[in-house]
């Protein structure tokens, strides 16, 4: 009996080890360009017999900075992390900060479907038409958003008078390089300037990245797992598979 139990434990342990590093081995389906960055929000929708909301980052980032929604309006960076309620929206919070008839269509009976669209065939902004004039990128939405902003194709609104407090911008730090851990792999160049256009300072500091040089330790594994740079670069901003966008400085 003891022997049998011993083998059972051994078997379970070996089975567990098979699943330890399971996030590798096979190719995953890549989202289509118009699916990349889409988020289904379903805190209360289905409980109230309403279709969940399909939020598309590509549509919103063609007009607004990341900072406006994720800092000033206060959206979490995690799916369903905000707990948005219809009554909050109607009071001018969250989606309702813009979707009030002044900046964007208001939440009315006729417009419910435009956001509460999961599982429905709803007429929405044509992805191909919106992005056709933008510089092409290799991954994600197949749009180089950074260049689109520099070229003036995308003009970002970074503040709203109702929710934002305008203040003097900080002087930006210079670009700096981060050593890659593998010999022969080009160094990473991190540009504060390129990020601050979209994210300001507060989106990353101090929660995701401490501000003390060298004190935040992270690896490519962490990034692929959605931490640090991978918080945005993977699900919304160009994915980490676009190696050459960051690993740019030859050694």
């Amino acid at each position, binding site marked *: 009996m003891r*022997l049998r139990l011993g083998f059972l434990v051994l078997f379970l342990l070996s089975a567990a080890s098979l699943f330890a*590093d399971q996030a590798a081995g096979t190719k995953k*389906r890549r989202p289509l360009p118009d699916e990349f960055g889409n988020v289904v929000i379903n805190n209360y929708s289905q409980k109230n017999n309403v279709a969940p909301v399909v939020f598309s980052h590509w549509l919103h980032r063609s007009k607004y900075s990341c900072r406006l929604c994720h800092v000033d309006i206060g959206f979490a960076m995690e799916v369903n992390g905000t707990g948005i309620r219809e009554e909050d929206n109607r009071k001018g919070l969250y989606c309702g900060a813009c979707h009030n008839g002044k900046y964007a269509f208001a939440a009315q009976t006729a417009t419910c479907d435009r956001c509460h669209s999961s599982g429905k065939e709803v007429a929405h902004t044509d992805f191909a038409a919106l992005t056709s004039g933008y510089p092409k990128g290799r991954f994600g939405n197949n749009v180089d958003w950074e260049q689109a902003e520099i070229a003036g194709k995308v003009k970002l609104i970074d503040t709203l008078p109702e929710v934002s407090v305008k203040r003097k911008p900080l002087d930006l730090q210079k670009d700096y390089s981060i050593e890659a851990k*593998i010999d*022969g*792999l080009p160094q990473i160049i991190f540009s504060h300037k390129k990020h601050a256009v979209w994210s300001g300072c507060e989106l990353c500091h101090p929660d995701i990245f401490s501000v003390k040089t060298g004190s935040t330790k992270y690896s490519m594994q962490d990034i*692929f797992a959605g931490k640090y740079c991978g918080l945005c670069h993977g699900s919304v901003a160009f994915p980490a598979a676009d*190696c050459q966008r960051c690993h740019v400085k030859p050694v």
Partner: protein
Amino acid sequence: MHLVLAAILLVGPVRFHLPPLPAREAYGNVLIDRTTASGPVKAVTFSHWSHRTRYTCRVCHLELDFSFERNGTEITEEANRKGRYCGACHDGKTAFGHTAEHCDKCHAGDVVTADYKKVDALPWSLYGDGVNWTRALAAGAIKPLASLSGDVGGIQLDRTLTIEADWNFVPAAIFPHAEHERWLDCANCHPSIFNVKKKSTRQFSMRNILAGEFCGTCHRRVAFPLNDCRRCHPTMKNEPQL
């Protein structure tokens, strides 16, 4: 009895059952019948060897977003005609177009339509499609295009890994990044097939590879097959059996 059963469960079969190899002109062919299986139009047999003389893997599997899995790409005739997927090249300019007179060239059912003669003179290999593509490329016998958009500034990481085998009578396998980079983009393999974590290689067992994971994603049906033991285990002494 329980002891024997448990031992079999834990150790598994010792012999590897390599998948049977088809004729060389059929190796790497993919029957695409996602939408045609029940309709009046015949399925497409796609031949890898006829395409890889002109294009590297990354052109189709990265730029054109073809899945690595049969029928895993939502190819439609409409998308092709709009210049996506096959239509990116099969547009009447780069390669024959999506017009009525050419339908049969691809939609021919489960038969090979490409002419094997065009690869017959390339450096040969005993296994797979009969071509040693690494040598063909190195010798300049083929000059496959690496990008349709001119995006070829990939990372050159000349790093050859040595992967120790689990069994002490099997010599180590080597993995040359450089050879793979000539055909592929980093993102073709990283991070979904191979995460970049050091010392995570214990997962790359022959059993998993034979099941189509890791190296077996390509080296089973398209790139040289696993029967060609010495291509990866270069110091292996015994000639593997055919």
